[in-house]
């Protein structure tokens, strides 16, 4: 099973992430896959180790999915961690991808959630075409 992202796909994803950052005042938005690979990133967070953040996000989602199963849920589709000034919001998009939004006190959770809801459908459409392509049997 492979994922191939073409320049065109990436431009579409970038456009969405850019829109998300500018409309919500988030610091950074990352799109990662469930195995912990970074697909795309937009925003201004130069000091952050993106690879580690992606790996830990995937693990975090995996772990909470197990908690969900214990409670009789399939999984939790969004997670929110609040810090003193930095916050992170994780939302599942379909079964393969997670959107990670980093934000501080310049914006609010409500605005972040509103803007995520606005772009999530658009992103889902782009991603579903990418993940459909991978179904080509190549092994």
């Amino acid at each position: 099973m492979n994922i191939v992202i073409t320049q065109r796909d990436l431009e579409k994803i970038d456009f969405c992430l850019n829109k998300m950052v500018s409309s919500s005042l988030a610091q950074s938005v990352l799109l990662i896959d469930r195995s912990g690979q970074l697909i795309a990133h937009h925003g201004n967070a130069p000091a952050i180790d993106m690879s580690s953040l992606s790996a830990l996000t995937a693990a975090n989602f995996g772990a909470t999915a197990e908690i969900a199963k214990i409670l009789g849920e399939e999984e939790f589709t969004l997670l929110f961690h609040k810090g003193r000034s930095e916050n992170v919001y994780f939302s599942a998009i379909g079964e393969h991808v997670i959107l990670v939004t980093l934000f501080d006190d310049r914006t609010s959770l409500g605005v972040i959630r509103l803007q995520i809801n606005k772009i999530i459908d658009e992103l889902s459409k782009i991603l579903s075409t990418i993940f459909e392509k991978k179904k080509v049997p190549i092994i």
Partner: protein
Amino acid sequence: MPFINFSKDEIQCKIVYYGAGFCGKTTNLQYIFSTTMEDIKGKMVSIDTKGDRTLFFDFLSLNLGKIRGFDIRVQLYTVPGQVHYDATRKLVLKGVDGVVFVGDSLKVQRKKNIESLINLAKNLAEKGISIRTIPLVIQYNKRDLDGTDSEILPIDVLEKDLNSMLKVPTIPASALKGMGVFETLREITKLVVKDVSRKIMLLDKQAK
């Protein structure tokens, strides 16, 4: 699942170090982390317990330069070795492209090595991957204990136990001293990149 980004000419691969508890998976990553140059490595992330046992995984990202014009980025993970952490091992194996099985040369660990290898085959099979086809390298760790009071298994016994069916490349090593650590990494990366190249060529053919 190798992640091929044509716009950045980058291939990201996931390599998992697997093996029984205390066999030296984390030590392998620690040695790699401590001896590679700053500009090619990311931070090493470890989620472990107070007793230094891996609870979830260790993670290290490395940039290995270019192959056929593509930047090769490998992400190294370890799994917790203890038997009861099977759910965590399954999570870490998600999207794996290559596996290093770290075999413990200590005689007392003989049974645990075999159990862990069977567990790997089972967990891969659950993801629809065969242990016979995935890029796999076996490392016989703790060879530095040869000649000390600790009783270790000869290589041919380890071969018979772990590699008689698989016939994959094996490397004697001492993760603590660094012997064989980079040879193992080089070998598994070579196998993974070969596997990815084969897939890219097939994709190209299909596109035509």
